[in-house]
């Protein structure tokens, strides 16, 4: 290209050169819409199969153009994190920035290559659409702007969690997981898209988005406030919760779900115990004495109910048979997962609200149910599942065959037993992992070497234990043998020699029902001087006494309760593992439920009498 000499501006005729264009083909495009580019940002498409109704698109929309519509026909499953909702777009607001697509956790939302929509005043409702895969006018335009790896704004990776190396942790009961440092906690918390699927999935409906947001805003005391709205066992849940929230987390669909549990733990660890106690104490309204409540069992359910009721001005007394509180979280969960001092902190907060706990007090032995009924306005049974189930295979009555629950309790209580040189554990759940890893630590400490084998009926992918538990157990040296059904505990001259197992072809039938099939020819013997059965737990309901047992209604061996947690006796409520099966967060939810029910019941009684 040349520069023009503007001193000589050229002939007046020069512009007429443009007349040469007269004969050329015009640049004019044919009438009608041209095909748009491959990543064009046109009208929305939404794959309803992929969409989970999380509403993240609604949150990122800077124009509030997206509204969630609940659609009754659609399947909804809070446990899996699926809502029967789909986004609807207001094209009177949309600016086609595509942030909704880039932030969609599932990748269901995209923009099509369709861009023409006109309507009259009467048809203006056509500006509000419920996108589906067919497009705005059902014309099946191709996808334009859709999710790509480089445009994805969802952080699919977790912040790494530092924990003790396997060889550092096997000789002691020191806590394995370090917990987040402030930086990684902030980063982890900031992955949250606040969809609230975790809230829906949590049995106790913990508002995780709120405390995660508080952590991310570096306002940890606000996080504590939010946590204590729904969970007084924050240290416990911050460490050993079965985190249904994480299974429902919508980031988990394409990536790793948020470490919600560790974030809770981080908030609790960072804010000192005294400060937490101050924060919680402010929640206690100066209420008049509302009544007297007795609770049997200082486990998660009992403690939660006590917390709720104490905040409402009730005089709460807990009767606990064991020397310390926490129930299964203390006597079932090893210290390396939940340090006792953290549990003590949680209990201290509850007792600081005025809750009295009588330890070493067995109801039925030291105080009768009749007494409790007489002295209190309401009684809550939260006795838990403290009896271990046995396979009852031949040889299982040998003295060296233990129940995992009993053994874990012995470890916590510091009771003596002979540490086996070689141990075999039957069971594939978290309790099996707990006892295996505890025995391994004791072996390392006593014998300087470890030999623990876990046999499970289930195949690896069916195992009930949490994936990280399995992984950590194996790191530490626990040998896990899958698909083995226990056949007998071999005893030679009164001495336990091992466990004979048979190959389990399949555990469940096609309909997912328990229907184990064995290959009787495939027998293997695992040598051991101790066999531990960790297959299940049962409640000990003898304390109720025969009379009360007869009066109460039962269902499938458990106390029958209604959805509020009431038993068939008007003064008696039940909660926790004993009625709902073993799970700490369910127990906490049950504690809230009965506390709430009791309050309402007593309030209506007072109203009636007044």
């Amino acid at each position, binding site marked *: *290209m*040349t*520069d*023009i000499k*503007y001193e000589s*501006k*050229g*002939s*007046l005729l*020069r*512009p007429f*050169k*443009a007349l040469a264009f007269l004969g050329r083909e015009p*640049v004019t495009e044919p009438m009608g819409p041209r095909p*748009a*580019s*491959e*990543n*064009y*940002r046109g009208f929305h498409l939404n794959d309803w199969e992929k969409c989970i109704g999380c509403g*993240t698109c609604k*949150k*990122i929309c*800077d*124009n509030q153009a997206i509204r969630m519509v609940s659609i009754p026909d659609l399947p909804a499953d809070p446990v899996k994190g699926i809502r029967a909702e789909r986004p609807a777009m207001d094209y009177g607001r949309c*600016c*086609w*920035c*595509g*942030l909704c697509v*880039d*932030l969609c956790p599932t990748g269901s939302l995209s*923009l099509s290559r369709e861009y023409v929509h006109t309507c009259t005043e009467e048809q203006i409702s056509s500006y509000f659409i419920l996108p589906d895969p067919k497009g705005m006018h059902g014309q099946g335009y191709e996808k*334009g*702007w859709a999710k*790509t790896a*480089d*445009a994805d*704004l*969802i*952080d699919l990776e977790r912040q790494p969690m530092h924990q003790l190396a396997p060889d550092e942790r096997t000789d002691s009961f020191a806590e394995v997981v370090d917990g987040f440092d402030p930086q990684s906690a902030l*980063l982890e*918390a*900031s*992955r*949250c*898209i*606040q969809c609230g699927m975790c809230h829906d999935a949590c049995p106790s409906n913990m508002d995780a988005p709120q405390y995660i*947001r508080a952590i*991310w*805003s570096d306002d940890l005391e606000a996080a504590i406030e939010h946590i204590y709205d729904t969970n007084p066992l924050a240290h416990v849940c911050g460490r050993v919760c079965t985190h249904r929230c994480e299974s429902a987390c919508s980031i988990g669909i394409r990536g790793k779900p948020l470490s919600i549990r560790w974030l809770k733990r981080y908030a609790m660890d960072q804010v000192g115990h005294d400060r937490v106690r101050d924060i919680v104490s402010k929640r206690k309204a100066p209420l008049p004495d509302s009544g007297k409540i007795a609770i049997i069992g200082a486990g998660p359910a009992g403690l939660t109910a006590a917390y709720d009721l104490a905040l409402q001005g009730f005089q709460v007394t807990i009767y606990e048979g064991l020397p310390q509180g926490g129930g299964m979280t203390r006597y079932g969960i090893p210290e390396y997962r939940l340090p006792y001092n953290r549990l003590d902190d949680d209990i201290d907060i509850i007792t600081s609200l005025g809750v009295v706990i009588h330890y070493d007090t067995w109801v039925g032995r030291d105080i009768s149910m009749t007494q409790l009924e007489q002295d209190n306005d309401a009684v809550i049974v939260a006795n838990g599942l403290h009896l271990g189930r046995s396979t009852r295979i031949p040889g299982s009555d040998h003295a060296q065959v233990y129940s995992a629950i009993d053994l874990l309790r012995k470890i916590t209580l510091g009771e003596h037993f002979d540490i086996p040189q070689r141990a075999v554990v039957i069971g594939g759940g978290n309790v099996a992992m707990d006892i295996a890893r505890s025995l391994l630590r004791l072996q390392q400490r006593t014998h300087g070497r470890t030999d623990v084998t876990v046999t499970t009926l289930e195949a690896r992918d069916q195992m009930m234990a949490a994936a990280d538990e399995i992984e950590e157990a194996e790191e530490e040296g626990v040998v896990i043998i899958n698909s083995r059904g226990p056949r007998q505990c071999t005893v030679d001259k009164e001495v336990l020699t091992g466990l004979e197992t048979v190959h389990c072809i399949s555990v469940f039938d096609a309909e997912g029902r328990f229907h184990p099939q064995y290959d009787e020819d495939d027998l293997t013997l695992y040598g051991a001087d101790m066999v531990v059965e960790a297959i299940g737990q049962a409640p000990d309901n003898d304390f109720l006494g025969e009379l009360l047992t007869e009066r109460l209604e039962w269902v499938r061996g458990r106390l029958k309760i209604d959805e509020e947690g009431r038993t068939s006796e008007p003064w008696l409520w039940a909660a926790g593992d004993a009625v709902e099966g073993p799970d700490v967060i369910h127990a906490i939810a049950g504690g809230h439920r009965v506390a709430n029910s009791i309050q309402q019941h007593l309030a209506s009684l007072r109203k009636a009498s007044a």
Partner: protein
Amino acid sequence: MRPENYKSVEHPPSHEYELNFGPNHPGIEGNYALKVKLEGDVVTEAKADGGYLHRGFEKLMETRLWMQNIALVPRICVPDPVPMEVVYSLGVEELGGLEVPARAQWLRVLHLELSRIAAHLFTFGGHAATTGMYSNMFWGVTDRDYVLDLFEQMSGGRVYHMYNVPGGVRRDLPDGFLARVSELLDYLERRLPQYDDLFFANAVFIDRARGTGTLTQEQALSWGVTGPNLRACGLSFDVRRDDPYLVYDQLEFDIPTETAGDALARTLVRRAELIQSIRILRQVIARLPGIDGPIRCPLPNPLAWNVPMGEAYPRVESSKGELCFYLVSTGGDRPHRVHVRGPSSMHAVQVLERLSIGTRIEDVAQTMFSLDACPPEVDR
């Protein structure tokens, strides 16, 4: 400017009148107005009247998340939206200490220079129309449209691309994109001589533009003129070279200047800049394939993004001049303050008001287009 043979006549008082030049006037650029006092057809007083396009951007940006604002910023200047995206992103990156990957920086330069070409072509079209040369307006608009086609392939949008985000860009280029850019540059190079015939070297245009809206160097400096308008007064200043951002310091390009300071000089500077932009783009096309890597640094979740406390005053050279944002963060998820300093804040208001005085009414439009004033940028 009055023609040489113009003889001043004593006008009766009725020859003095006020005129609302705009907002609904074909000669005005955008939705903007000048209230002019005329003596005959010579402007004796001019007062800009803005706010017709006021949307309260600065307020709205305080209500939206850092990431959401990427949808808002390009709309501040409609004909040249890309520098807005980039300057905002640069500011957030400075606040957040984000490292923009090399490839993203080159992609941004590609995007910026394409936008500059589009904006200049559009201005040529507009300027031609104000001097009655509609053929050239048709050409300018159509050729700009070919650039918009490239934007559409690159970012999925013709006019508002929302392509730059803090930390990088949103997408990598589609296949074969650079070849298409190259084709377009070839086309534009072929086209420019035709523009010369019709417009730049047109005696009518030169006569009308020469001496219209003349700025002296001192005036330009003192009135805060920047960009091509400043360079048309012989002052070689360009943010790209003198306060470099992105990878402009790795690129070879000249800063064209003219000395006359009038509408013609400004237009010629733009024409020369078009050539420089083509030169920059050729370098980008040559370099870009060799620069691999991510196009965006890892970003926090946009819904939970607290940008660290601080302030930033990023600057870029838009097609119209110096464009700056003043960003203040208090460490929250939204900006505490965003001040948009567009070049047109000066050009379309105080400079235009001053330059209009003494010109004939029919040249006011030309003056405005030659200053490349962008009303939405003034009104925000």
